[in-house]
């Protein structure tokens, strides 16, 4: 059992008490809503500023965030090779298992891929951090979306808190490393990529 597994029992205890809340959490925990919303915010930021200089800054932040999403996914895939612990609805402890199974069936479904670290947390926090480093306002919106997504998955009993914290940490660290260390050293590749994109009228 991972640390803080008691929190899962506490949060899944709320499932079934307020159907409207369960429905809202099911919508937020969904595989599509938050990722698409994050993508659309990034798309709006890509072309939404009137000043070409500021627009280019935002576009660079989006390129950094996208690279960070890719690297964070890779890190998660590598860590997923090690079977740290099972999903909350598969643990040996019957009380936690039954509570998490009920929560997952009501709010979400029973996923069977590895639980630690959470890929959802890694990619959403990687995106939010990458954008936040370029645009505080849009970054804050993405952090809120990322937080809602991981909280809903915690509420649904499909992750332990430590899975989500681990994923979020991978996302944040990867994004900072990509934006501050790696990407500045890859010049002039990002500049050339933006030139090609400008030639194609997409930047």
């Amino acid at each position, binding site marked *: 059992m991972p640390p803080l597994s008691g929190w899962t029992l506490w949060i899944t205890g709320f499932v079934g008490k307020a159907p409207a809340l369960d429905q809202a959490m099911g919508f937020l925990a969904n595989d599509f809503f938050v990722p698409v919303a994050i*993508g659309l915010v990034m*798309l709006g930021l890509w072309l939404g500023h009137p000043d070409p200089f500021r627009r280019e800054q935002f576009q660079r932040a989006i390129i950094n965030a996208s690279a960070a999403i890719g690297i964070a996914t890779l890190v998660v895939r590598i860590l997923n090779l090690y079977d740290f612990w099972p999903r909350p609805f598969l643990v040996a402890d019957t009380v936690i298992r039954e509570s998490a199974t009920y929560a997952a069936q009501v709010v979400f479904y029973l996923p069977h891929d590895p639980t630690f670290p959470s890929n959802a947390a890694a990619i959403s926090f990687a995106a939010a951090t990458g954008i936040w480093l370029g645009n505080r306002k849009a970054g804050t919106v993405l952090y809120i979306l990322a937080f809602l997504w991981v909280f809903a998955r915690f509420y649904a009993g499909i992750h332990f808190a430590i899975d989500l914290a681990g994923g979020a940490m991978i996302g944040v660290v990867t994004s900072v490393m990509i934006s501050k260390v790696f990407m500045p050293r890859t010049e002039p590749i990002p500049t050339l990529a933006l030139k090609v994109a400008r*030639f194609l009228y*997409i930047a």
Partner: protein
Amino acid sequence: MALDYFVLVFLAAVGVYQIASIPAGLEGLWFFKHQKVQYLFGVLAVIGAFVWFYTDEERNIQPTVEGAQQLVLFLGAIIGAYVATALLASIIQAKLRSRGSKLVKGKQHDLGMETLKTTTLFGGILSSLRKTREDED
């Protein structure tokens, strides 16, 4: 499910292009003369896409669209939506405002989307082709 996901992103992206092109002043992507109408259209396209997607059928099921496939579909849909928006805006503006024939000054790889502030996408392409021909002559 993959097709539904593509349609969701495509429609929502068209809405985002309409909304985001207002503050950016990218008139070459505008469908409407009035900004309020365009904003309303954009918001309705985004909300409508999500409402359709989530009311059409149950979406909290074992994923049939995996992460990598989602990424490919997302990129395809936003590029498709951009081309569709630019094409439709070019047709509308050519009919209504007789735009798209201006000669844009500067190199396209420096200007990028800035071109869309003064002309449509196809107007910009035509202008680039004319400039290339003039340079050759």
